[in-house]
């Protein structure tokens, strides 16, 4: 069955909006359930971590440059670089490493 890209986009848009709009419109009180609170607190970190590795190794032309991007990204973020700077340093290291790699193979 072939699927329609615009229906995919519509589904993503509706679900994303619902996720953002429901709490803001419905919740008038503080969330009390400790487990739910903790679960929601950890979810963003887990999702992003799981999506980053090992996928970053396959995003580039060589796993080596992907690994370098991961390490530089972690280092830059650890040292307090902002979102833009971290993203840029990841791109930069991939560019450099992939320029160098041919000389070693």
């Amino acid at each position, binding site marked *: 069955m072939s699927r329609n*890209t615009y229906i*995919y*986009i519509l*589904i*993503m*848009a509706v679900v*994303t909006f619902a*996720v*953002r*709009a*429901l*709490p*803001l*419109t*419905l*919740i*008038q009180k503080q969330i009390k359930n*400790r*487990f739910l*609170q*903790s*679960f*929601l*607190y*950890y*979810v963003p*970190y*887990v*999702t*992003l*971590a*799981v*999506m*980053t*590795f*090992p*996928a*970053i190794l396959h*995003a*580039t*032309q060589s796993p080596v*440059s992907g690994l370098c991007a*991961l390490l530089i*990204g*972690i280092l*830059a*973020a*650890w040292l307090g670089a*902002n*979102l833009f700077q*971290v*993203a*840029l340093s*990841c*791109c*930069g290291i*991939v*560019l450099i490493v*992939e*320029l160098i790699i041919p000389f070693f193979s």
Partner: protein
Amino acid sequence: MDLYNTRNVNKKCFLQGLRNGIPIGLGYLAVSFSLGIAAKNAGLNAVQSFLTSLLCNASAGEYAGFTLIAAGASYIEVAVMTLIVNARYLLMSCAMSQRMNPDTKLHHRLLMSFHVTDELFAIAIARPGYLNPFYSYGAVLSAAPCWALGTALGTIAGNILPLRLVSAFSVALYGMFLAVIIPPARKNKRIAGMIIVCFAASFAAAYLPIVSEISEGMRTILLTVIIAAAAAVLFPVSQSEDNGNEP
């Protein structure tokens, strides 16, 4: 007179938001470029990727969606994945709900919800007192077009640019993910440990027999629910800690 004052404050907030949204928009322009490449790889054209970014405003959520579209996943899978990956916006929206003036009208609440992102949430919540909807509108007006435009450019230029540059731009998105998860990990050892567990589990799941047969999107959902639930049971978070670490 009172009405006049309110309108003045709203106008000031709007202009402040407009200004504060500019650096965020510039960052978006660069990062969304790599999202556009992911969209292209999933078979979307520039109009479709522009539309997706304009309507969703979600880096990780859109990226996950594109991966699933590329794999020809079912509509249900895309809906569930979008829900899971964007769960952090649920949390941010919850946090924002605690900072709303109780008199805020429904249409303002709905409009404010539309663009709850890591960055815009951060600058909105960092301001003292009740959240002013007009501040958010200003920031969105600066940042959102950049996000959509960058995505479309990535989809178009992903075809034109040399492979080496595409390869470099593709990691911008992961860089952004790292910029969100690493600073809290530095402050909180449990988050740091959890991220290491995530990397290891995700790596194992990608290569182990049987588990690696499951689609990438489904693996992300399962790993997220299992690891986050385990962490919630083992290391419950107190409310004050939660607020302290929010980006």
